[in-house]
């Protein structure tokens, strides 16, 4: 630390540490360190061991070799990524129009719409997932309607397949997409729309040339969020997919609880983490880079 009498430019960290409120941060930061970063580091470390917990710990990459060497496990990775993408796309297709509509409302209608979007988050993932059983099941709402209207002679099997898992999870994660997009859409200046109109643009042109480009990073954030949540999702795809889907999250769960094979399970977890990071970090970065390339002076 410089010891001059004039006001020196202390480093940001030093200044923070000396701030009187710093001591109040020790609890939250400590909490994060102990319950978040530490387990994360442990998982990564354990993924490089051959057996854990055990008397002797040897470091090895055999878990990763086993994972990527097996076509079965590679299929798990592929299925997980595809599942994540399917959920994300469905969320985007449903979420964008909803966000667009929501942002154009005022006053009471806006509040109600906002509440309707957020409310599912307050309910919790299990009731919502089970709710889909009530809708899609053989004695569920849809089948009741179809049979009642004599549109079908037998109940349709809508449940316990990958489609149900995609639709159900997209529904669960929809609020994240809607909120990400809506917050960016609401920042678009209204006068830009008028300026475009004034220059001759119709609704479709305004949407294509102004709205979409300016909402793109909201879309990227929403997609990144939904994707990372989707690939780590356990309950919804397992319940609605009938336990038949080969996904990484249930696999890791399985390895930890049922075998148990903590090293391999950890490796699966790390693969999942890295996959998520690639999309969460990579996607917005792509949008930013493309924007810079397009507008470079």
């Amino acid at each position, binding site marked *: 630390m410089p010891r001059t009498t004039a006001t020196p430019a202390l480093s940001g960290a030093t200044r923070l540490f000396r701030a009187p409120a710093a001591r109040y941060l020790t609890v939250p930061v400590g909490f994060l360190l102990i319950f978040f970063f530490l387990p994360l580091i442990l998982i990564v470390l354990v993924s490089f061991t051959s057996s854990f917990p055990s008397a002797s710990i040897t470091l090895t990459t055999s878990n990763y070799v086993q994972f990527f060497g097996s076509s079965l496990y590679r299929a798990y990775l592929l299925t997980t990524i595809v599942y994540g993408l399917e959920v994300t796309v469905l969320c985007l297709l449903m979420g964008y129009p909803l966000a667009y509509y929501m942002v154009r409302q005022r006053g009471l209608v806006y509040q109600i719409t906002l509440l309707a979007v957020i409310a599912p988050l307050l309910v919790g993932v299990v009731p919502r997932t089970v709710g889909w059983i009530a809708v899609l099941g053989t004695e569920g709402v849809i089948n009741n309607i179809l049979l009642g209207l004599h549109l079908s002679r037998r109940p349709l099997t809508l449940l316990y397949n990958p489609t149900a898992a995609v639709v159900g999870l997209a529904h669960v994660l929809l609020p994240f997409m809607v909120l990400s997009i809506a917050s960016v859409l609401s920042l678009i200046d209204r006068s830009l729309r*008028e*300026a475009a*109109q004034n220059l001759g643009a119709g609704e479709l042109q305004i949407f294509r040339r102004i709205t979409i480009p*300016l909402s793109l990073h909201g879309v990227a954030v929403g997609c990144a969020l939904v994707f990372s949540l989707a690939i780590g999702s356990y309950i919804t795809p397992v319940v609605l997919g009938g336990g038949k889907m080969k996904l990484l999250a249930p696999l890791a769960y399985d390895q930890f609880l049922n075998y148990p094979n903590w090293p391999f399970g950890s490796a699966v977890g790390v693969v999942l983490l890295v996959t998520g990071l690639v999309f969460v970090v990579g996607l917005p970065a792509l949008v930013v880079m493309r924007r810079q390339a397009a*507008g470079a*002076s």
Partner: protein
Amino acid sequence: MAKVFHRTEVVHDVSVSVAPGQFLVLLGPSGSGKTTVLRMIAGFEQPSRGTVWLRGRLANDIPPNHRDVAMVFQHLALFPHLTVEQNVVFGLEMRRVPRDAARQRASKILEMVHLGGFEQRLPRQLSGGQQQRVALARALVTEPTVLLLDEPLGSLDRHLRMELQGEIRRLQQELRITAIMVTHDQEEAMTMGDRIAVMRSGRLQQIGTPADLYQRPANAFVANFMGDANVFRVAPLDRAGGAVRLRGEGGLVFLAGDAPETPPAECDAMVRPESMKIAAAPLASPNCFRATVVALAYAGAHVRCRLRLANGMEIRSAIPQSTGTAPSVPLAAGDDVYVGWEPSAMRILL
């Protein structure tokens, strides 16, 4: 046109017309409805009553994107994700002008606003004045029927404003584009407009050339808005050789040359500060009164002087400074002087 907004009449029965190639300024304080009138012309608001005619055609039902009027917005509304060139060609693209022709026209117009070479910049990389010019170029390049300007220079500093006022006017005349501008700055209005329409609380007060409005304001509001004015509440007495004698407060008698044949029983009469002369001895004109100097303020081109008349009323006079280093007024606060003006400089307002 009339416009009702949230159950308040924002614009009452305003009628204005602009001849081709003319520059009309809608002038008034905030809340006078001038921006609403502009927006009705642009198509962003629908008049509750009345009609908008563009090029002789009824425009009420034409949506804003088909009206061929180009607007420069108060906060510019440049598209932040598009380059200067992309912003400027936007209107041409909407009109299906082929890309090469559009680029050429854009280059030309950018040259005209002194922004040649700025095509690839983004709006956020430009200064306020430069952004202003891009907005102008974007509107002008479409060669619209009417150019609409909504207080475009409000956010700029004084020098930049004056510079751009001149440029806008020059471009408008060169391209012979009809223009309507909204502002609350009377100096800007007088500098730029062929005709000015003064509005207040949704009503049109007066339309005329800058000189008309300044020298022959219709009422006290216009008189005060267009510049400093001394307004006296008076009652006419009789006519005396082409002018009207008026009795003011405290028994002062004025002679007003600029008066209608039969002035109303009670009215306002105004004199501009620059028409007043101050001297140590009585002046030759019939309007000459004793006064005490209350305060003096040196304002470069003239000295502003507040005087109190015998009836207690304070008036303001502006004494032009001749070219020289020292102010040529040997006055000090507290001096007793004579202040006077010609009858022709006094006008009865209604």
